[in-house]
């Protein structure tokens, strides 16, 4: 009987178009949108070549340090090109700046450099910093000359200039990059997508369970009177829902890995383990809503979708840093949010590998599922109907 009920529940679920939309189609559609929207985000945040204008007056032409530095940093053939520089008159520079065609204007007023910007920003700060570096180099030069004069020596200005420039530009500092390898933070969006699919998958469990509840329709009444233990019919129905949910999730994984090139780290068995735990959390959440909330099927569906939306929002689906903000400032909310647990588990696998954090997330999902089942059991137990 267990197998019979499992088989027919599975068939019913697979033939329900609305359910298939939520568990199979919607995550794929949303994932495709993510791919389109986030394809450029990580390139955009990097420091790109900065468009600037330099007022090409006599003061600029006469200042070798500025002229040479900006020539070098604007060299298009160099890999280290920092600026896309145009040399123009003062009026033209003002127009370019107000039209937003350049991020800043360098204007030499005698020996004093002036920077004109429209608004604050990282590009403008970098321009100011480069100009300041040239000013600093000149200051070091002056200091060196002064020191030599104080010691009674005749300074070799040309040699000193070369020496200082070499030291400043040479950058012999011993900086070693200790950053972690996997830094693609848009991956979080795809992890929230998996979390969403796990939680939306609960809709399948909700439908399967509703078929067994006498207060949800004639089919439930019919099922309630069959001479089979309630536990057996419920368990077989929920197992069918869980299996359907996992099929949907498997399709999503194949799509995200092979089409969208999402990186889940190099630990496939753990990726699957987390998906199983996440799906279970989604299923048990749906069971809890189905049994505890006393309203019609559409109302329960709306509540489940509302909870899922809220959980996904807080785990970073609509703004990647939201998850970090909630985790650091409202940790309790983060700890009870199943979407956050799933997202964090995949993040841990991708960024840290299999470690304590990953196992904490898996354990949290287990505890969450157990708690949901416990609450549901309170709602389901002792449901007996008297003869009328």
């Amino acid at each position, binding site marked *: 009987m267990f197998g019979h009920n499992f088989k027919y529940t599975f068939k019913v679920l697979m033939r329900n178009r*609305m359910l298939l939309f939520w568990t199979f189609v*919607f995550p794929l559609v*949303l994932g495709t949108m993510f791919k*389109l*929207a986030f*394809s*450029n*985000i990580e390139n*955009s*945040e*990097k*420091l790109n070549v900065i468009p600037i204008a330099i007022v090409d007056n006599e003061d600029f032409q006469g200042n070798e340090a500025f002229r040479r530095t900006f020539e070098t940093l604007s060299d298009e053939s160099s890999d280290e090109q920092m600026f896309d520089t145009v040399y123009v008159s003062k009026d033209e520079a003002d127009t370019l700046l*107000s039209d*937003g065609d350049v991020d800043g204007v360098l204007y030499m007023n005698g020996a*004093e450099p*002036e*920077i*004109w*910007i*429209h*608004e*604050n*920003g*990282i590009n*403008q700060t*970098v321009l100011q910093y480069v100009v*300041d*570096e040239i000013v*600093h180099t000149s*200051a*070091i030069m002056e*200091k*060196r000359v002064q020191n030599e004069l104080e010691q009674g020596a005749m300074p070799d200005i040309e040699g000193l200039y070369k020496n200082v420039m070499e*030291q*400043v530009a040479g*950058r*012999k*500092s*011993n*900086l*070693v*990059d*200790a*950053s*972690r390898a996997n830094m693609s*933070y848009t991956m979080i969006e795809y992890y929230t997508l998996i979390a969403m699919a796990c939680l939306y998958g609960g809709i399948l469990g909700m439908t399967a369970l509703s078929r067994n509840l006498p207060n949800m329709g004639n089919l439930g009444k019919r099922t309630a009177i069959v001479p089979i233990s309630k536990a057996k019919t419920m368990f077989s129905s929920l197992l069918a829902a869980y299996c359907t949910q996992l099929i949907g999730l498997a399709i999503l994984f194949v799509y995200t890995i092979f089409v969208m090139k999402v990186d889940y780290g190099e630990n496939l068995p753990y990726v699957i383990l987390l998906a199983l735990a996440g799906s279970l959390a989604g299923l048990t959440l749906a069971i809890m809503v189905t049994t505890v909330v006393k309203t019609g099927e559409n*109302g329960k569906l*709306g*509540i489940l*979708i*509302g909870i899922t939306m809220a959980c996904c929002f807080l785990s970073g689906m*609509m*703004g990647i*840093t*939201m998850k*970090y*903000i909630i985790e650091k400032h409202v940790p309790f909310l983060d700890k009870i949010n199943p979407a956050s647990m799933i997202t964090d588990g995949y*993040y841990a696998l991708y*960024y840290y590998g299999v470690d304590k*954090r990953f196992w904490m997330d898996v354990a949290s999902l287990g505890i969450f599922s157990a708690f949901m089942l416990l609450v549901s059991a309170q709602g389901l137990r002792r449901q007996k109907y008297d003869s009328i």
Partner: protein
Amino acid sequence: MTVFKAFLHVLNKCNGMVILYTALLLLFGGINAKSGDTTSQFTADKPEIVIVNQDENVGITKNFTDYIAAHSKRKELKSEEDIDDAIFYRQVAFVIYIPQGYRQAVLNGETPELRYKSCQSADASFAQMMVESYLAIQQNYVDAALQANPDEKNISLNEEEVCKDITQTLEQTSTVHVTTTLDTNSMSKAAGYYNFASYSLLAGAIFVICLVLTSFQELPIRKRITISSMNYKKHNAILLASNLLFAIALWLFYGLISFVIVGKVMFRAQGAMYLANSFVFTLCALTMAFLISSIFNNKEAVNGIVNVVALGSAFLCGAFIPVEWLPDGVLAVGRIFPAYWYIQTNEYLKTLETVSVSGLKPVFINMLVMALYGVFYIIVANIVSAKKRVVA
């Protein structure tokens, strides 16, 4: 009046779901704006830096840490995991580790190894430039001091003098003139809030209006409406006007919250324009919801449509991430949604120095485009309604 009463009756029956979804969406917008999502604050002029100093904070080490702290937003984080998390989520751009014995090594004329972590953003590149530049100047002065006294090495090296020279050199900066009078941070926050509103307003309007109107699409009701003497266009017009009440209430809520979250910008002319723009968008969202409800009869389908349409337009038009980060191809696709024109207006208002009729021309054009979308949706909805009057 009969149609209006029926509308209110159905709305009242769904009040639980209406309140839940409206509150959720308003909350999303509010939390999102309050959290100060740094993905939209890319233009910070000081990078966020963590200094992990394992050396004694005196002399040349102190000079170094003081300089970095003065030119960055210094953050204190407790553990290495906190640092790694902050780097990944771009909450910290750069972390510099100063090892034990750093000061002594520098004074000996060595270049000790300094570890760093970077999130590889523009801020991080700038922070690295800053550190490298400081170290170059430091090395220059230390070398000069050591060269002046080659026999005595660090014993005679006057650390205080070197620190003073470094500080004096770094204090010399160029003059910067800013031409804008706008408070760009506040304007960005306002634009971010109203950009996100495109999702909340659209999802809220479609969800609630479709939920109510699908009740009018049920077959027995449709038959009853079809045989009534009322013209279907008039019937649609009354339903649309009834929905307008809810749409205006939604817009009012969102507008009122913006006064609390966005603050002073809302009391300027630009604030009024943000409100006007969101009002036109709300009307457009209302007509879109009306069209969707005339096409789909199934209540179960409403949730799916809300998510696909609202999330789709939000991701493709720049409601969740800054428009300038979206690829051109995506923005080209986004043009088919009214949200694109709405968000373009918000982005334009963000940079608008003074509000004048000529300056607002692009705003009016975008509003006109949204209005045309609205008219188009109503026409299509009427055509669909006319076709559906034939009940088998």
